[in-house]
């Protein structure tokens, strides 16, 4: 059974303009996003700040109410869940946030942080509770010597381990990882990624992995959804999306993420302009003001996502369009400056 199914999800926020009522603006944080996540798999939501990736995660976790569309978890619509069913769902879907220093209560010890979800949701006896806390800590690479310390005594990587242990306390089926390694140094990031990968295999977890770093996503996710201004530009198997992107934004994103190989320098290409405001998103395709391939239709009509092989692409360009053609010309320009 599909673990998580998101259908036509939209989340809009009203913001008040000025002191007097009557002129509220609407932030189109998420517009018509659909995807599915199978048990034990990883789906990555990728995009730049403000693209709505975290809002999707918050809607999945019922932290914000969708404006329209539905989220179903294990075949049941989460919007209609009440009481026990809702609590069970929230036990099965856990979250790890970006900054462990702000997601862990600084006044609590590791022991109370990790045991809190168990105390609140289970009826474990004292000894069972101790055993469970210890086994969780061992699972994330910590030990008894850490039990009575507080978050400030740990490094960022260790704190993230504590946050992961806490998220795993109730044997969830889904863990939402919201930029779990963005605040960490690369060597620490590598260790957390290895740990997350190990835990996924061992516990059969599904991850909804939110990240802006494409390299991280590439190493973790089986499938990927690239978001731009609240909409999904392209989604499909990660390997395909990375090797043969079908949406101009995906191409731009891939081209702008700097490769650590100095010899791959010539491929860096620059996308002009800034991300527009989500209050008044551009009409038609939201990417069109920055798109190097825009056509008249892009300014008028929103390109409905359509299937291309195993992928969904929201773009008016023909499926066999060669997205690399403009890329190479610009790359020359950059290379000229570089030498």
């Amino acid at each position, binding site marked *: 059974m599909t673990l998580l199914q998101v259908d036509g999800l939209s989340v809009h926020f009203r913001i008040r303009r000025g002191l007097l009522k009557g002129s509220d603006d609407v932030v189109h944080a998420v517009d018509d996003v659909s995807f599915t996540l199978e048990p034990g798999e990883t789906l990555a939501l990728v995009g730049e700040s403000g693209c709505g990736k975290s809002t999707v995660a918050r809607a999945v976790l019922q932290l914000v109410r969708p404006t329209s569309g539905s989220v179903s978890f294990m075949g049941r619509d989460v919007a209609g869940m009440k009481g026990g069913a809702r609590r069970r769902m929230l036990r099965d879907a856990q979250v790890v946030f970006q900054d462990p220093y702000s997601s862990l209560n600084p006044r609590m010890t590791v022991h109370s942080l990790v045991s809190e979800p168990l105390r609140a949701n289970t009826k474990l006896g004292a000894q069972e509770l101790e055993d469970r806390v210890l086994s969780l800590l061992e699972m994330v690479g910590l030990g008894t010597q850490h039990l009575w310390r507080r978050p400030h005594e740990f490094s960022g990587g260790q704190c993230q381990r504590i946050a992961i242990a806490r998220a795993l306390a109730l044997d969830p089926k889904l863990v939402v990882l919201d930029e779990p390694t963005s605040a960490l140094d690369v060597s620490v990031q*590598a260790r957390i990624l290895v740990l997350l990968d190990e835990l996924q295999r061992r516990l059969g977890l599904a991850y909804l992995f939110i990240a802006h770093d494409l390299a991280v996503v590439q190493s973790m996710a089986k499938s990927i959804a690239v978001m731009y201004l609240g909409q999904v530009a392209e989604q499909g198997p990660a390997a395909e999306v990375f090797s043969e992107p079908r949406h101009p934004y995906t191409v731009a994103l891939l081209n702008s993420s*700097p490769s650590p190989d100095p010899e791959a320098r010539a491929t860096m290409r620059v996308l002009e302009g800034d991300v527009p405001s989500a209050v008044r998103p551009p009409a038609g395709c939201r990417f069109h003001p920055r798109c190097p391939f825009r056509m008249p239709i892009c300014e008028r009509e929103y390109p409905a996502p359509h299937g291309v092989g195993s992928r969904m692409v929201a773009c008016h360009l023909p499926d066999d369009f060669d997205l690399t053609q403009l890329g190479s010309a610009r790359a020359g320009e950059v290379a000229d*400056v570089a030498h």
Partner: protein
Amino acid sequence: MSSATPSTHLPACDAGAPAELLAVHDLRLQFRSMRGLVKALDGVDLTLHDGEILGLVGESGCGKTITGLAILGLLQRPQAEITAGAIMYRGDDLLTKSDAQMQKLRGRDISMVFQDPLASLNPVFAVGKQIEDVIRLHTRGSRREAREATYRALASVGLPADKDTFKRYPHQFSGGMRQRVCMAMALACGSPLLIADEPTTALDVTIQAQILNLLLKLRGELGVAQILITHNVGVAAQTCDRIAVMYAGSVVEEGPVGDVLNRPHHPYTIALYECLPHGRTATDLQTIPGTVPDLIDPPAGCRFHPRCTRVMERCSTEKPQPVSVAERHSVSCFWAAEKAGIQIDARRAPQADEGASHEDGASA
């Protein structure tokens, strides 16, 4: 800085190479803290030629930013104390200069831009005014000349050089545009050297690419040499000619970017590169055991030795001296030197005169 034809990332071997602009020799620095002395820098060696971009790469707390601030004389005394070393700018030791002399030098000879442009701009003044102030501080010309220079500075960083831009306030710009304003301010007086401290870390990747391109353009068109401080190996790989890898307060390896990243010699550089998720699945990601040392009580000898997989006996007692393994490529590591068949000595006790002797070593 005249007609600085910047070298490509593979160094030119000819004699007409650009002149040395900045050289840091064995810089050592400590901070007083409540818990004791923090030995923040322990032997930083860097060289930068005219028109070059040098990447200073390392993880949090390795001393990259401190090195940048030390070059500009921006560290607060007496909490920060430079215990040894020299910072040679065009042949002058900056460490011997008075505060007043440094004040004149900052913004005119060496400038800096920081990670968060919103925090480095004054929110209550229009950006044009802020740039103009810098120009009027450093030059004697009329107000009108300063105004014109401001417009030129705006244009040089790719902002519209018009009254509208001049009169806007920092909050009216996006993050990428603000960083451009900071750069315009830094370069308004024609500094030949720009220290950019994580200039793109707060930005999205597509905007980051724009700013990195701007750095390349400033070097190409104005010949501005740069020290790019970054934790992102990719950013350094795509932008820099040379790269210096720092670990726990020391430069462990310095050289042309292609050599250091594609043919690393130091075990830390090797390990750091293998931690990068690029093109690797999580199952074959490599990790570095252990954690970064506490600089109040750093390990004796080579500071990386407790985490090093190639550790040898002398590593825990002696600190390796940088040795040259190739043209302008030096490494501070006993193992790497031995592997390359180079005689290596332990670093001597701090001495200010320890100079460029390791510049052209065994490979010659």
